[in-house]
Each structure stands twice: as structure tokens, then as C-alpha cells.
């Protein structure tokens, strides 16, 4: 089964997940709106975003308006909830992909069913990025690597390798198999070229989304852009990001099934 085909089959997952995400983030949004009375994003000709003047106004607004501080606290509380919820949905999605057909209730019940075992995997998996990134730091020390760029790239590669390992292993959890972390590693390292391909596609799409994201930020803050346009743009980019993430998840299912010769 091709990844793209699988992706298309699960297109609604992307949309529904996004709606859930926005619902979870809603309290933060409301908090921030209290703060919104402060005209932080101002005439961009005077204070381009990121400029020193922008920074000055932002700091002043931050310290004279408690709304933003509350919003940041609300965000800090919301993020773990968001991540756990998305983690449940991710394992549900992969389990559903292994079953080969999708329905809304089946997807949610699979998410609930596998959630605790997925958390167990997550806890065991935590040692993977710790070791990989630790090794990378050791290499920096041993070979006296000073360049920030090579450090960032190496750490990013280690992190994405770990993440990919996690997603390979989630296949095991989704299929109710044991030794998922070990089998995940076997699948990943026997199909490393696949991993590189997935990461490359993911990175390309991600950079594109990031550029659009930034452009949106600029446009959205511009007084001449209508608000509806901004909200719609945000939604479109968020949906695009979700599809990228879904592609990443689907790819891991496809690679797994090919490796273990499951049809």
C-alpha cells in the first residue's frame, strides 16, 4: 500500500485532530484576548516584527499587562495535555491503519484502548534520545567541535532518529505485539534509507510550512490585511501541517508493514 493512498484514506483524521487541538488551545486563546487590548503589533513601518523597537514595545506590554503572563501560564499547563491527547490519537490512527479501514468511533476507541501501553512505550523510549543526544554531545567534546551549525544539525538528526524509532515502535503497540521498542529499532535500522527519505520529505514540507507561517504572521499583523483572511490562513496552514504529520505517521506504518511482510 502506498503512503499517499493511505494518507488520502485518513484525510478526515487530519481535520478532526486539528479541531480537537484548537478546542484544547481555546482557553489560552481566550486568555490572550484579554491581553489583546494592548496594541502590540503596531504599524509595521514603525516597528517591523523582530525589530528592536518591536522588542521594546513587547517587553513593556508584557510587564504592564498581566493578561499575557496568565496566557503563558495557561499555555504551559495546556501543552502537556495537548501532547498526551495527540499521542493517544496518533497510536489510534496507526492502529486503525493496521486494521485497514477507518471510522470515527473505531478510531477514538482504538486511541483509548492503546493509550496506556503507548505511554508505557513513551517512558521506555525516553532513554533513546537521552543516549543518542548524549553521544552527540560527547562527540562534540571529544573532537572539540565548535561550529554551532554542525552541532544543531547533529542534534536534530539524533532527535529525529529517536522520534522515528518511537513511531516505528508504536506500530508494535498498535498491533498489540510485545518487544515493540526492539522491533521498532530493527525496522528502523534495516530501513534507514526509508527513514532518510521520510525525514527529507518531512523537512521540506516543514520548511515550506514555516515560511508560510512566518509570512502569515507578517500579513496577519499588517493593518491592511483583513482578519478573516488571517484566521483562514492560520487554519489552512495548520491543516497542511497536520497532513504533513499524518504523512509521517502513515509512512511509518507502511515501512513497518513492508518490513514484516504484512499485507
Amino acid at each position, binding site marked *: 500500500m502506498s503512503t499517499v493512498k493511505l494518507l488520502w484514506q485518513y484525510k478526515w483524521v487530519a481535520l478532526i485532530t486539528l479541531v480537537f487541538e484548537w478546542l484544547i488551545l481555546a482557553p489560552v486563546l481566550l486568555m490572550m484576548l484579554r491581553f489583546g487590548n494592548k496594541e502590540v503589533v503596531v504599524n509595521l513601518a514603525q516597528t517591523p516584527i523582530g525589530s528592536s523597537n518591536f522588542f521594546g514595545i513587547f517587553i513593556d506590554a508584557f510587564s504592564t499587562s498581566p493578561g499575557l503572563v496568565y496566557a503563558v501560564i495557561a499555555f504551559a499547563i495546556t501543552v502537556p495535555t495537548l501532547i498526551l491527547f495527540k499521542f493517544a490519537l496518533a497510536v489510534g490512527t496507526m492502529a486503525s491503519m493496521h486494521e485497514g479501514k477507518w471510522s470515527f468511533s473505531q478510531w477514538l476507541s482504538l486511541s483509548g484502548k492503546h493509550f496506556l501501553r503507548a505511554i508505557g512505550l513513551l517512558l521506555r523510549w525516553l532513554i533513546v534520545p537521552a543516549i543518542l543526544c548524549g553521544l552527540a554531545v560527547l562527540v562534540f567534546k571529544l573532537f572539540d567541535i565548535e561550529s554551532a551549525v554542525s552541532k544543531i544539525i547533529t542534534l536534530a538528526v539524533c532527535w529525529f532518529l529517536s522520534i522515528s524509532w518511537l513511531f516505528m515502535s508504536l506500530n508494535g503497540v498498535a498491533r498489540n505485539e510485545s518487544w515493540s521498542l526492539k522491533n521498532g529499532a530493527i525496522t528502523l535500522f534495516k530501513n534507514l534509507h526509508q527513514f532518510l527519505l521520510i525525514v527529507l520529505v518531512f523537512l521540506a514540507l516543514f520548511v515550506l510550512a514555516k515560511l508560510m507561517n512566518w509570512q502569515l504572521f507578517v500579513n496577519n499583523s499588517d493593518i491592511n490585511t483583513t482578519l478573516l483572511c*488571517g484566521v483562514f490562513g492560520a487554519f489552512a496552514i495548520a491543516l497542511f501541517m497536520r497532513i*504533513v*504529520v499524518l504523512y509521517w505517521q502513515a509512512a511509518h506504518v507502511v515501512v513497518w508493514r513492508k518490513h514484516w511482510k504484512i499485507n
Partner: protein
Amino acid sequence: MKNLQCIVLVFGFILSVSTMASALRIAGPHSERVHQTTIKASLDVESHRVTAEMNLKWKNTTNDTLHEIPFHLYLNAFSSTDTVFMRESGGGQLRGDKREGDDKENFGYVIVTKLSNAQGKDLLANWQMDNSVATLSLSEPLESGQTIEFNMSFTSQLPKVFARSGHNGDTFNFVAQWFPKPSVYINGKWVNHRYHAHSEFFADFGSYDVTLTVPTDYVVGATGFLADKQQEGDLTRHHYVAEDVHDFVWTADKNFAEANQQWQGINIRLLYQEPLDEKSIQNQFDAAIASFEWFEKYVGAYPYSTMTLVQPPEDASGAGGMEYPTLVTTITDLDYSSFQHSAALVTIHEIGHNYWQGILASNEFEESWMDEGINSYTEGRILAEAMKRKNVAQFAHLSIELPMVHHASTARTPTFDPVNTNSWSFINSRAYGTNSYSKPATILNTVERVWGVEKVDLLLTAYYQQWAFKHPNTKNFLDVAKTIDVEMAQFLDDAINTTKTIDFTVVSLQSEKKHQGGGYRLLLEQQSEVTPEYTKPSKSDLYSNTVTLAYQGELTPPSIEVLLTFEDGSEETHIWQLDANKQWKTLRFESEVKLVEAIVDPRFTLLLDKDLSNNIKKERSESNQAWRWVVSLLQSMHHLINAFLPL
């Protein structure tokens, strides 16, 4: 005629040679040279202890007859947990560093072991030590113009460095505030403060002739000019001469590597810790040269022939970022970074002190702003103008200029004390910090933006010309300002000597289609049988705009700009002439295009403004700002999570 020419030539040659090989690149004396201090010191690198003999000739340059001479014994601030310095610093926590423990090696002292007059008469009985200060009672009064001579022996035990002076438990020794130093008699009284947590500099100018004996494998750096170096077995004697300076500091470390660069008769010497790459080394020289270039152009000459930059090792970071005449310490991390320029900035800052503390030599204890504050202003200009680094930090889309950093810290600190407050009298350490560094920098940045940079340049030049080597105070500075611009001087006076503040705001903004009046037209001599004429009320094509501006506080410039932006992007600038009796103003005017935004002070001239974020108002229908940026910001954070954990 020919002979005369010859004599002039020879004389000129001798003169140029002598100025080349001396502590001064511009022949002195520049100061009164109150004292002539000769020290022969040797360092025991195992115990980090200096034993020394000192000959002091002190001249009464005052108009009064003196009966005593107070001295600094500032190393005694480190002698126990009960000193003023230790108490003020919370038992030894300062500048991000702290005392490493309660072991003996963390403490230090300086004690005078022998004291006699020129004739060899023992004077130790007249020596009264009170921790970090001491007083020598004179057996005979010292008349104005007379010189008195003493011989002393003293021992200085260095503490483990956590604040400025000391050793690192290994090979690094930073020997500052180490010898008994006479204090300053000024305005009819002795000024002899104890060593405080936040202030330590106020001393008289003089000449130093210091011979330092250390193991041969140690590299030495010191105030002034190395006149001579002689090896005797395992030990080497370094003979340093310094003139027209108010302090003498030195350092010795086996691990120093050395680099030198010349700039117009100044030998810039960098003592650094290996490894350090070429680019980072050059970055230090560039910072030093940029400083000298800028100061010589806008302030005045650097009269000395040397400048030594010392990079302390990482385990002696407490010695970093300090200023002494012709010798300063850098931060411990000198690696060049394209993102932020702290390595260059700290060096610029410490070299700047050679002017504001070294040459002007104001009283840092009582008026720290004159040293740290003016310096915090000039360092920003040197970084931007002479080093062409407009931003002190630059991360992706975020750029940070120094004036805005100083604004943020000034605006965030409550104004409980005036800038001009004794360094130990502020409500807390944060108030000391802001009022000594960021606020005076912000005051000068504001003055620069409101009255123009040329006037600030004139002020700094005139200040140097009138007060170099003369210990000026705040009043002297303001008197110089008055000769440049009376209004500017008044603003400076208010900003420095009072707790006056300022906060501009746009209270409201409305822009609506103008009403074209309508209804029945009733005439005065209305006749009952005629129906009054009726016109339908309507709205014209014109917009009627109302903008209300206001300010709180008293620190007002003469006028301030208000920028009005219209829906089609066109702009109009209004000048608001400020009136102390009316703190608000409503602008009413008509326009063909809708007014959408008003901003007070769009060029950010008044950096002293307590809150810049209320300087802007958008028309109500346009001010769905919250949605605009909240959606964007939240979305960006959301995407960040998605990218790092693609769930």
C-alpha cells in the same frame, strides 16, 4: 640658524624617543600627581601572598593644613564574613559569582608590618587600622604645598577570587586593591569610604614605580609601561612605570598566552587563555581600537602608551569585566559569535572606564552613574558607530539594540531613588544597578534623540576638556551641559537628580463619517401656514477624527511627534508642543481617508517613557489586534510543538 635647526631636530628626536618609550604617549604631567609611590613586591605563587616594601611621597596639594592621612586597605574587605563588603554582598555573592566556601583560602587581607618616616622613625603606633580603611596620624601638621615621605612594609594575602581580586587556587593571580593607598582630600574634607559591594574607586592621581618579582615562567601584566625586565635564576623582576593614574593593578599567570597590536602609539596587549582562535583575538583588538578611535574623536585623548586586556580563566570569572588604569579584564568567554557581541561589548565597556573612571575619576562611591552610566551610554555608541554592530544581539528575526535593552530595564525598575544617589544608599541592588547603568544610559540616549547627537558630542568633549584628572561631580557635569543648551541641561538635571518620570499614551482615537446636519429648518420669523423646509440628515464623504493624547509625569521634552496613519497608508506628523499645565490634548480634524492609527513618539526618541506599548492606538474597527496576533503567535507555538514531536 643652521645650528638652531640642528638643535631643534636633535631635541625633537630625543623628545619623540622619550615619549615613545614611556608610560605616556602624550607628555605630562596631566594631573597634580599628588603622590609618588614606589613598590618592590614579590609574589609567592604557592600561598598567593605578596610581600612588599613601599616608599610613598605624598604632597599636600590642598589649601588646608592636614593632621592625618587616611588610607584604603581594601583587600581587608575579604578578610572576614563581618566586613561591610561581605554583609552588603550577602556573605560574598556578587556579579553572578560567589565565595566558594568557608575555607581559609577564600579569605584575604592586607596588613602593614612596618611603617617609618624618611628619617627611619617608627610610626606604627600612629597607624590606626579599621578593617578596610586606616588612618595615619601625623606627628607634625602638614602644611599646604609640603611633601611627606614614608616607608612601609606590607603583606597582601589574596583571597580565592569571587569578586574582582584574587587567585583561582592554581596559577592565576589577579592582584587588585592590594596596597595601602592614600585617600582623597577634596572640597575641604577627606573622602575615605570603606570597600563596598558595589563601589570601590576613588583615589588621587600620582606616579607609580613598581618592581614585581615572580617566578620566571609566569607571564605578568600590570598598569603602565614595562620599563625593564631582569631574570635572576628562577625569578624575574618586572619593572613597571605609570604616570597620571590613580591605581596600580597587576596579574601573573603561567598559562597566559600573549598577543599585541599597535594603534597610534598605544600598545594593546592581550593576555588570553588558550585555545583562542585568531578571529576572537582580532575581535578583542578591534573592540579596543574602536574604543580609542571613538573616544579620541568625540571625547578626548588617551594619554597613556599601553592598554592591557586580561582574560581570566573560567574558574576565576569573578575577576572578569573589571576596569583599572591601562589594564582591564575581559569576560572569560572571548569566543567570537555572530549572534551576540558581549565579548566585544565588555571590552569596550572596561576601556571606556579608563576615561570615565580612569581619567575623569569622579567619585564612584557617591555618584556611580558618572562612571558606569556615562560609560553604558558611550559603549552603545562605540559598538554601533565604531564597530558597525548596530545590534548587540541578533537571533533570526529578532534584533536587539543596546538603547532598547537599557530602556526595558529602566522602565521595569520602580523609580524610588534618583540616579544621583550614593551607591550603598539605594533601596536594593537592582535599583543600584539600573540607576548606575541603564537609566543614565537611557537618559543620555533620550537627550541624544531629542536634542541631537551633536549636542551630546559637544557636552562630552567639553566635559573632558574642563574636568579630565580633576574628580568632577554631577553639578560640574550639569554646569558644562548648561553651556551647551539650557533646556537640555534642565532635562538632564531633572532626570538625574529627581525621581521624575514620564509616560505618554494615546487615550482614544475615533474616525467616523462626518454628519451632514439635517431636519426641519425653523426660521426666526416662522409663519404658521408655511411648512418648514426639510432636508434629510446624511453623512458626508469626509471623516471627522478625534485623537486624545496624554502624559503622566514631569520629565517632558519641549515637544513630541504624533504620527497619524490613514487607511490608505498615508501618514501625517503632528507636533505636540507640551505644556506643563495641561497634561492632555485632543486633536480634532477632518480627512478624506479614514484615520486608523495614532502613535506618540514614532521615532522612539523618548526612551525614558515608562511604557511604550500604550503609545499606540488603532481605530476601533481596526483594532482587532488581539485576534490578529494571538492567532499568529499561538499558531507558531503550536507548529513548533508539531515539528519537534510530530504527533
